[in-house]
């Protein structure tokens, strides 16, 4: 009995840590650690390896913010969140940034009191079907059974799409991506629907990827964005412009390899401002001059991150598509650093 009380309080004392929500930047600096909400495991975007090192596209954003704010890309505590717990984790202050492939929607931005500060991946919801099904268009899926992850916008999109096209379907609700794959491969559903990037990632890892096709229809816009709490504008600015710094770096050809060289020799005034050579932009958001340089150094510019985590060279094999720079016909467009 005594043992029990002792243990409890000792645990409490060892773990109790306070944190205020008003000034996130000050909190993060005081803590010396950035709390970043991520997916529990979506290969390419956020997944821990065998040693618990998190890797992926969303992780790179966390690292960049940590590098900009704390000067060390490794000072991130990754908080795995499920589809159900993610927004509460943010609004309750458990995480400072939510980089968990979450779609921006009107109600999430307003009613849920979140601020989606930067869209890091433009996605859309698609369908994957086995080739043997003989289906070439989503319009032919009337009456089909569709596997769908619960608690996501895809669930609502699916309902809307089938209604709009006057078709019927039977949903099979699944809890995680791993489970969805299993159901789909066993034929428990005719089609698997989620973000097209997720479908590509899933298909890439199948034993026989060629037996499955992703249907041409993209039934929704899924701008996946990084979110912060509503009300702390300065912190929102920091996250937003850290992300833009990565995008701008790609535009101006700054890579993790030539970063120092660019910082010292570049004559482009925009690059000079970005890397803190002239105009102390960092000061305006409460950081030092070299914040953006550190953010880029963390895991490279946007293009490098994309190629290293989900690009054509990885097993996931995603094309840049909408996520190319605006100069190359994509939507990635960093406002001027001025």
């Amino acid at each position, binding site marked *: 009995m005594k*043992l029990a009380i002792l*243990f409890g309080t*000792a*645990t409490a004392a060892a773990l109790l840590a306070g944190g205020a929500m008003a000034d996130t930047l000050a909190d993060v600096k005081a803590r010396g650690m950035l709390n970043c909400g991520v997916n529990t495991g979506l290969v390419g975007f956020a997944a821990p390896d065998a040693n618990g090192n998190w890797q992926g596209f969303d992780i790179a954003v966390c690292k960049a913010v940590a590098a900009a704010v704390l000067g060390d890309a490794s000072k991130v505590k990754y908080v795995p969140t499920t589809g159900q717990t993610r927004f509460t984790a943010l609004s309750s202050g458990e995480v400072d940034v939510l980089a968990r492939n979450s779609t921006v929607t009107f109600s999430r931005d307003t009613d849920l009191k979140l601020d989606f500060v930067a869209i890091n991946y433009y996605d859309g919801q698609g369908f994957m079907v086995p080739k043997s099904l003989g289906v070439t268009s989503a319009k032919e899926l009337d009456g089909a059974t569709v596997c769908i992850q619960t608690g996501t916008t895809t669930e609502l999109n699916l309902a809307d799409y089938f209604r709009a096209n006057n078709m019927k379907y039977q949903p099979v609700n699944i809890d995680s991506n791993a489970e969805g794959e299993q159901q789909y491969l066993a034929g428990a559903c005719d089609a698997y629907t989620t973000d097209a990037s997720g479908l590509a990632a899933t298909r890439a890892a199948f034993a026989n990827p060629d037996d499955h096709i992703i249907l041409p229809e993209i039934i929704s816009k899924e701008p996946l964005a990084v979110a912060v709490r509503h009300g702390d504008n300065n912190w929102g600015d920091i996250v937003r412009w850290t992300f833009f710094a990565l995008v701008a770096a790609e535009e101006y050809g700054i890579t993790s390899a030539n970063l120092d060289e660019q910082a010292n020799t570049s004559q482009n005034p925009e690059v000079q401002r970005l890397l803190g050579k002239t105009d102390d932009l960092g000061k305006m958001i409460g950081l030092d001059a070299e914040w953006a340089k550190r953010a880029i150094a963390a895991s490279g510019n946007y293009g490098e991150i994309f190629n290293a985590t989900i690009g054509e060279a990885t097993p996931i094999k995603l094309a840049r598509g909408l996520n190319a720079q605006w100069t190359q016909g994509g939507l990635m467009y960093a406002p001027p650093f001025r």
Partner: protein
Amino acid sequence: MSEIHAQTVQYVRDTMLPPAPPPNRQSGPVLWLRENLFSGPLNIALTLLGLAAIWYLVSSIWPWIAHSVWHANSLKECRGIIAATFGEGTTGACWALVRERWSQFVFGFYPSHLWWRPVAAFGFLFVALAPVLFSDSRGIRRWVLFLAAILTVWIMDALGAPTAPLTWVAAIMMLAWLLSEFRPSLLLVMTGLYPALGVWLLWGGSLWSPIVVMLGFGVAYAVYRALERTSSLLAVVGAIAAAVAWWWWIGPWLVPRLNQTVDLAITRVASDSFGGFLLSITIGVSGIAMSLPLGIILALARRSDLPLVKGFAVMFIEFIRGVPLIALLFVASLLLNYFLPPGTNFDIILRVIIMVTLFAAAYMAEVIRGGLAALPKGQYEAADSLGLDYWKAQRLIILPQALKISIPGIVSTFIGMFKDTTLVTFVGLYDPLKATADSVRASVAWKGTYWEPYIFTGAIFFILCFGMSRYSMYLEQRLKREN
């Protein structure tokens, strides 16, 4: 036998015949089969049904088990090996996944060079439990401590523990063994110290903070003893107040100063690196340890004569027992922040431990209430007639006996709680069952495996829970004999 007899009686057998073996159908395996398997039409049908079930299960699972592969780097490779060895189209188990990722199922993301620390903490747990659970037999205690010491040191060594902690652990284990041989009562000191030691080993950091927290209990006890003469109630209230004051004001002041004087810090491990069975056991053990006192208080409150106290206890117990644990876990992860002062934010593992504790406490309260009710009324009357007041009667006479009766119930509550720790997966923690398996399967190499991780974790759960239930049955038997 004399000759006369031989002449007077026509025939007398003078040697003993060896007993003839019973007829074939009345002995040996045949009889056994007849009696136990084929004694009637119903029994024959049942036996055949049972055999059919066994045959069906074995024939459908055996080929898969027989085609096991232990060495491979990915599922694809596994399938290749199976196809190459056992022929195209056969399926087989790919244990290579378990071989490569076992550490994730056991330790989660706990840093690999510090794996010895949870192992040591787990080993010491047996030492701490020895006087509580293995108190009644020196032989058992000796074996438990001996095995715990050998296994702990061996596993620590295998996991690459440095020499210094290895020596320390071996020395402490040795000391515990000596104590249990010669001064068993002193072993309780180990039990009292274990919480601080366990927390320190698992989370690291300074040893002073758990020590100071523990000192708070010492302060409370001292205050209780000092005030006991005046009034028992006053002593309880005073002790609680003193402890709270100690933790609230003196502790935070003392710890940094102690840290500056003598630094007893080891590498900190954040609780988000906890996962797998380490997480389950941490939540389970701390939950059960804290729920026991809480359960006792609730059980006493529910049996109290004071209607208000009883009412609150009933409300609390019925509320907790009426709501699924998974809902309480969601409260821990979604709502607890609403109920605490703005800006408070603490570790999700701690929040889960609190909720699991409350949950287990309600069940524990019912188990202990059963134990209290089972105690003969004479015990209560005896305590009254000795002039003991309520607290003294409970502490000295009622609770020790009631708790002893309740041990099987407590153990089965613990087993249930230990199994329920797998539900933390739904609030984003890496439990050994679903979350870890999902995260392993999220890697490209192991995508598509399904049964192997479940069988692996299921087997470990079975061994642990079955062991505990068997031990509690054994204890029950022993306690029965005593009465």
